[in-house]
């Protein structure tokens, strides 16, 4: 297992962390990419999905967008964007080589989980709660802000959490098409048969992914107004298959 000692040597050498293409700089770059893309997807996706969910319209689109998003390989979309004449491989400020192409791909892949979960979050508010709010004389806006949004928030946040995981993974893959981010260490190590380096990069990427997921899970717990979150596969769980993300389309076909 010489690769492990190589990996350790790579990670413990301070020189590999410093500099413009060191681990620290690439980590910062990938975090910047991730945050930017997630924010852009939230700005675009959240208002539309929440509003559609409030009105109860466009459910077919909101739910199937996740299924379509899942079928498109992130690698293929990134490759298409990079090879196309626009956006191509142009450097975009701090986002690095092929920065724009990467940001577009990241945002596109963050949208499906955000849209589907936010839509379902609004629809899954219990009908009697909704009716009670209406009976109390609340207007549509009041119902949205004071009833539906607080009750649906955990599911909305679980969509954001899923999007975060997706964006981080896609940002890593960007390096496979000569894009920015930590994946560069992985692909560079592999293409030059320096496997210790590749595995070191993978370890850093995986560790950060787990930390991000944990932070997101904490946020999700914090916003649950009822605090009866069922972490083991209840409806609030983003990965749960009978949960919001796939149930309706999958069942209606059968």
């Amino acid at each position, binding site marked *: *297992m010489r*690769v*492990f000692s190589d990996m350790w040597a790579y990670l413990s050498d301070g020189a590999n962390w410093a500099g413009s293409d060191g681990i620290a700089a690439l980590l910062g770059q990938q975090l910047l990419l991730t945050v930017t893309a997630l924010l852009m997807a939230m700005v675009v996706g959240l208002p539309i999905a929440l509003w559609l969910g409030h009105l109860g319209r466009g459910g077919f689109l909101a739910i199937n967008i996740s*299924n379509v998003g*899942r*079928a*498109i*390989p*992130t*690698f*293929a*979309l990134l*490759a*298409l964007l*990079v*090879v196309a004449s626009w956006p191509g491989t142009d450097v975009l400020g701090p986002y690095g080589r092929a920065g724009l192409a990467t940001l577009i791909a990241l945002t596109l892949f963050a949208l499906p989980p955000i849209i589907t979960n936010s839509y379902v979050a609004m629809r899954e508010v219990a009908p009697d709660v909704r009716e009670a709010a209406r009976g109390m004389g609340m207007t549509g806006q009041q119902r949205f802000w004071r009833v539906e949004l607080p009750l649906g928030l955990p599911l909305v946040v679980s969509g954001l959490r899923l999007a975060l*995981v997706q964006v*981080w*993974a*896609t940002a*890593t*893959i960007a*390096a*496979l*098409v*000569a894009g920015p981010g930590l*994946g560069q260490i*992985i*692909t560079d*190590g*592999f293409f030059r048969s320096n*496997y210790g380096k*590749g*595995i070191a*990069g*993978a*370890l850093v*990427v*995986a560790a950060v*992914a*787990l930390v*991000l*997921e944990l932070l997101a899970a904490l946020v999700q717990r914090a916003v649950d107004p009822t605090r009866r979150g069922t*972490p*083991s*596969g209840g409806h609030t*769980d983003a*990965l*749960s*298959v*009978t949960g919001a993300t*796939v*149930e309706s389309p*999958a*069942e*209606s*076909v*059968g």
Partner: protein
Amino acid sequence: MTLLGAADDPSCYSRLVNDWVCMDYVTDRQQEIVEATIQHIGITVVSVVLGLLIAFPLALLARRVPRLESAILGITTGIYTVPSLALFPLLVPFTGLTATTVVIGLALYALTILVRSLLEGLRSVPDDVRESATGLGYGRGQLLLKVELPLALPVVMAGLRVATVSTVALTTVGSLVAYGGLGNLIKDGVLTNFRAELFTASLLCVVLAFALDALLVLVQRMLTPWTRGVRA
């Protein structure tokens, strides 16, 4: 050769033209494309089946020992969180630069989805159905095979569809270790700026995902004839 080539119109996948959509490429490189597609299907199917084989006992264990449930779900979710480009390298020290690396990685991802859908499916079986079966004298094993699993099937199949579609997409990343099926063509397309190759391989990936999904829907219809006409 170059002189002769210049006399004709350049092929739509020549360096000069480099079209995205080019049927000449598909006919000329047919063998390469077919081989990549077969490798892609092979890796996908083996991964999902392997994932299912591991997920099944795990789900049963989680159900039998409730204390283990959150541990199993926590660990599988943790694996799911690791990006594929990072997961494959982490497996390389154990499995080398082989198709096994890709298959194990993809099976681990499929596993997460499948364990959850198996648990959800079994949980969706109504208690009174279970009690009636027990009252009729079904033992534990028979109850599982003849009552619970068939009733859980719609939910399990939903999970299997999600797992299959995402595995088709993720297989492309296997090109890191040169076993990525159509992903190998995509990678080559990026490196050599070969648009027809890149576009054809990407399109085939998506088509493959939807074809396998449709196939699973058909299988589900055949396996659960009683659900037809009940749901809208």
